[in-house]
């Protein structure tokens, strides 16, 4: 099972890739809010999730996520919980 810092690192790198594709060079942190101010649209988030599935081999959004996602840390939490459920 990937460590917590692996998961955070993969998520930040994937988000950074989508930001760079939009010409946004300011690097995100775990505390960065994930609202419209970040500059990513729904298809960018879809791409981030697809990329993460390639790296972490899991897509927690397939079964739906019903908690509120305010910061990148909240997304990290979704992946960590899903990995814990999968790997025990």
């Amino acid at each position, binding site marked *: 099972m990937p460590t917590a810092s692996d998961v955070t690192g993969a998520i930040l790198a994937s988000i950074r890739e*989508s930001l760079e*594709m*939009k*010409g946004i060079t300011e690097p995100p942190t775990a505390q960065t809010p994930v609202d419209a101010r970040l500059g990513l*649209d*729904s*298809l*960018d*988030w*879809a*791409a981030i*999730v*697809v*990329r993460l599935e390639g790296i972490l081999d899991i*897509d927690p*959004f*397939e079964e739906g996520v019903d908690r509120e996602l305010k910061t990148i840390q909240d997304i990290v939490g979704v992946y960590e919980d899903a990995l814990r459920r999968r790997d025990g």
Partner: protein
Amino acid sequence: MFTRTPFAGATAEKHGMLGEHLIREGAARAERRAIDHGGHLSTYGDLRYAAIAMVSQRGPLAGRRVGLTATDPSLYIAAVASLDWLGAHTFLIGRRSPDEVESIRNRFGLEAVLGEEMREAAGRAATAAMEIPPAHPGGGRVTLLTSGTTGVPKAATHTWATLGSPVRKDPSLADSRWLCAYPLPLYAGIQVFLQAFLNWAALVVPASFDPRQAAATLVESGVTHASGTPTFWRQIIFFGGRDLLRRAALRQITLGGEAVTQDLLDRIRSLWPGVRIVHIYASTELGRLFSVTDGREGFPVRYLETAPEAGTALRILDGELQARSAHGMIGYEQEQDRAQDSESWRATGDLVEVRGDRVLFRGRSSDLMNVGGHKVAPLKIESTLRSVEGVADLRAYPRRSSLAGQIVALEVVPVPGSNEGDLRQSLLNAARAGLLPHEVPRIIEFVEALQPNMAFKLTRKEKA
């Protein structure tokens, strides 16, 4: 689910055209070069001897349903001619896995499948007395399997005579050499083979479709007419070596099997200024519908009023090109395919758009993606981005997404020496300028080469 006599109303030929051509008429052309396969040469005499030997030894196959998996060009051609002479119904299977061959054999009730072991029968010709067994009636029937990437291939039955009907016969073509960059058992490969064969010209089959090897073959084999998919031509232009390619003695370049884009026509024109460029529009079921030679993508809108070939008609219904054909198949081999087949107009699966005096291709209907509820055509994305500086080739394809259904992904082959970071940025700038937001690729990957399918066409399927 097949019947033995599905085409009771269709007229069978008295004797097979192909067998007649090689076995009877070929006697007077024995010295002519027929095949150049990776530098290995065969004459029409060699093919004829092999065909007669096979006829002598395969007599029991007369009138039977016979599959053919042999891919060596000389062997393949001798075999199709001999089966035609024997009045067999030939199924062109080509190179497939043993499981696929077995499934095809069962599905179509084939009584024999002939492969590379035919070489032995052909080889015995040299010592055998060359007495020609009589031809059997009812030859000429041949079934092609579609190259479709989804599920079970469809089996379209033609006669060699209808397959050969679009061929231009001209004694001045006897000295031409035809490069075939398609698998021989598929419709496009058969067209190139028949174009050479029925004119007693040479068929050049490269040992592989690798761009450098194919480019070397163009030059070393003195190819005058070369035919391949747009994907083949893109690869050869970018990776075949320009100095080498300029030395080719080409008179005609033919493109078929995929939509032809303006950037490719322009690149071919600049590399070979004097060459005639022909885009052929055809399908396994409909046969050849028309060709375009004016150097522009798409086809003239006037073809919708008056199709250029007698017996052929074109129309657009709900954005898709439909056609009636003079060169079409007799019918599908299987009941369930025939049931969906309307007698008159046939959908081509190609989406088109009228722009001014031109009908332009917008991709295959089966390639449409669904991105967050929007229909997206990969061909539009590819056409918009292919002219970006530093791009050798690319393909757009869907990636399955839990949040959006599908999203657009892009595989890019960079021109050697390009900076990937800069290229990614140029691609995104061009995408945002020329595409709608949901058409902009969200995932971009750089690869060394695109992987065409067995027909050397690009697919827009998600990678396995």
